[in-house]
């Protein structure tokens, strides 16, 4: 399949808002037609808010939010985007070694994250800055690993938000195990595990599906299909829509418009409630798009076309909610102005905190490797301390 045909299909979907059809694909290869046939029977995305900001109904998922709640979701998305933009700038200025932008995925993260209860537990990958935000994690804590001063650095139990996991899919098993523990404890909380379309190919993700189904674990798998695993399109990960995989493992899968914050909230809330009722896991595929590079080290111009990005820009999650709120009178100009000021303040604060992040003491290399101590670590720590001290003595002379 060519990149052009991928873009064409997505454009067709957006403009028609209907099921994908075989004719939407311009390619005539056998592989493509097989996928088009599979897509032809695929149900629509769960969507509650169109790209134009019109509220639509869905028979299985509905949501009734107050104006204040809508403003809250909007605020979350705007501030998360601002934070992300600041981090990207900081990387460009050499303050961060790397950044993984969430641009375009704000609705998927804020919508799913706002479905959580405080006693639920989240297992993120390394791009869940919006989910961290709604969990109350200080966003500047997320930057330590990207600045190179730690490998995580927060206590996961403070906000029930696990450390970022870089090896793809590993955390889905941790999430499943944690959920098995919840069930053993007889508690009614649930676990939300994030991963991407690339990670869906990993064995660990598939093993987590097996374990969670077998033990009926209260875990919701939230796959943000942002269409690209660095340079590899979703087509290189799967021959069937990802959400359909759940059926083979024995639990429901649903595809949601990942750029629709209301739909992401409604679908995740429903799946978490199902898990709490003891009905086991759900796979949610949030169909979205990574507007920026995979990380700041990546160059998307080498593997995808501007037209594709432009097509997704028209589905922007923040603009669509803004249009809806303005049309319905849920927010006035003052709200948007105040939020703009708040955004700028957040950006400034992030910048200041990052620049002030101290390089850890040399001896921190040895800290926290073991809980009970380790003779070799003790020995090497002492050697290293003596070595460092030898410089200090030299300077003093």
């Amino acid at each position, binding site marked *: 399949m060519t990149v052009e045909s991928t873009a064409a299909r997505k454009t067709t979907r957006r403009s028609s808002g209907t099921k994908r059809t075989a004719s939407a694909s311009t390619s005539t290869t056998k592989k493509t037609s097989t996928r088009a046939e599979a897509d032809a029977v695929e149900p629509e995305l769960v969507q509650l808010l169109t790209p134009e900001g019109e509220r639509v109904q869905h028979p299985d998922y509905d949501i009734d939010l107050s104006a204040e709640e809508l403003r809250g979701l909007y605020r979350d998305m705007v501030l998360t985007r601002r934070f992300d933009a600041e981090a990207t700038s900081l990387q460009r200025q050499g303050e961060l070694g790397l950044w993984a932008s969430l641009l375009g995925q704000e609705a998927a993260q804020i919508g799913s994250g706002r479905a959580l209860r405080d006693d639920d537990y989240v297992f993120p990958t390394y791009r869940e800055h919006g989910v961290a935000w709604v969990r109350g994690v200080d966003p500047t804590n997320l930057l330590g690993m990207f600045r190179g001063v730690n490998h995580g650095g927060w*206590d*996961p139990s403070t906000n029930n938000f696990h450390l970022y996991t870089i090896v793809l899919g590993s955390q889905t098993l*941790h999430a499943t*195990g944690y959920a098995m523990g919840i069930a053993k404890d007889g508690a009614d909380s649930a676990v939300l595990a994030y991963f991407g379309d690339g990670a869906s190919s990993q064995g660990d993700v598939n093993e987590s599906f097996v*374990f969670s189904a077998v033990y009926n674990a209260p875990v919701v798998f939230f796959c943000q299909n942002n269409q690209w695993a660095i340079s590899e399109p979703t087509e290189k990960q799967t021959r069937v829509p990802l959400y359909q995989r759940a059926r083979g493992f024995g639990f429901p899968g649903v595809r949601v418009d990942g750029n629709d914050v209301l739909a992401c909230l409604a679908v995740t809330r429903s799946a978490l409630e199902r898990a709490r009722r003891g009905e086991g896991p759900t796979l949610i595929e949030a169909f979205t798009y990574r507007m920026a590079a995979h990380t700041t080290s990546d160059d998307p111009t080498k593997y995808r076309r501007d037209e594709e990005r432009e097509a997704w820009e028209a589905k922007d999650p923040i603009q669509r909610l803004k249009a809806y709120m303005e049309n319905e009178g849920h927010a006035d100009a003052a709200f948007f102005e105040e939020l703009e000021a708040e955004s700028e303040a957040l950006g400034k604060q992030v910048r200041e905190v990052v620049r002030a992040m101290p390089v850890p003491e040399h001896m921190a290399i040895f800290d*926290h*490797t073991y*809980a*009970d101590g380790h003779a070799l670590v003790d020995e090497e720590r002492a050697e290293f301390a003596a070595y460092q001290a030898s410089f200090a003595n030299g300077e003093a002379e």
Partner: protein
Amino acid sequence: MAVQKLPLAKALNESLRKALETDPKVLIMGLDVGKLGGVFRITEGLQKDFGEDRVVDTPLAESGIVGTAIGLALRGYRPVVEIQFDGFVFPAYDQIVTQLAKIRARSLGTVKMPVVIRIPYGGGIGAVEHHSESPESLFAHVAGLKVVTPANSSDAYWMLQQAIQSDDPVIFFEPKRRYWDKGEVDTEAFPGELHKARVAREGTDLTLVAYGPMVKTCLEVAEAAAEEGKSIEVVDLRSISPLDFDTIQASVEKTRRLVVVHEAPVFFGSGAEIAARITERCFYHLEAPVLRVGGYHAPYPPARLEEEYLPGLDRVLDAVDRSLAY
């Protein structure tokens, strides 16, 4: 009665039983650990007595077993995971190395990882491929893991409970060819430190360092050498990471000669680490270079050849003679 004579396998079973009784957060997980009691019957009868919630039969997926154990540990449990055979641990190696070993450090010490991974290891039982390997160095090399192996029933009983009580992840290697060897277990005696080596036999002419299945072999070597008038000291390491170099050093300063014996390939094996450090520590005491006896840099051979591959009485005695000839 506090003192019993038990096969090593039964001592492990009693140890797990004790751990399950003592701490409600202890869980046993793995393939076939429930009704079957494990392929070596180490968990026999435990599911019957403690239920399916405490002794958990898992799907056939090693990464899944270890990965979910990590999640359970995050929830406050203390999972004891059984990997059926040494060669089957590798699907879980990623979870062990990239996750289990590092979560504590990544959380700046706020998260504990009290997971024990039990692995029956080593050869000598006539098994097929992937059932006889000694991968301990691959784990000892990873910071954040602890690696231990008992050589007798008493250590099997006590070391496993100590491993379970540790807030660090412990890779617990069980010498499968010694499962059926009987030894005394005092279930009330105060146990020694988990990571302290033990002088299993005193001697004055040469030190043999071994662990796990090779301790018995080395004791037999010392016995045979004694008939030739040679006095061999045998040190049972018990713990590979951390490794008790002080006990080895004290022994070598006395005997002035050292031979390290293990089943794993010699190349980049634990014997290399011991030889290097003891050479550093005891350079002026040594009368001979530190020698190593172990497996070859070849895939573990078919069962009919394993007696040639594994260090046996004659190969170790030969190394003893070479050392004494310097």
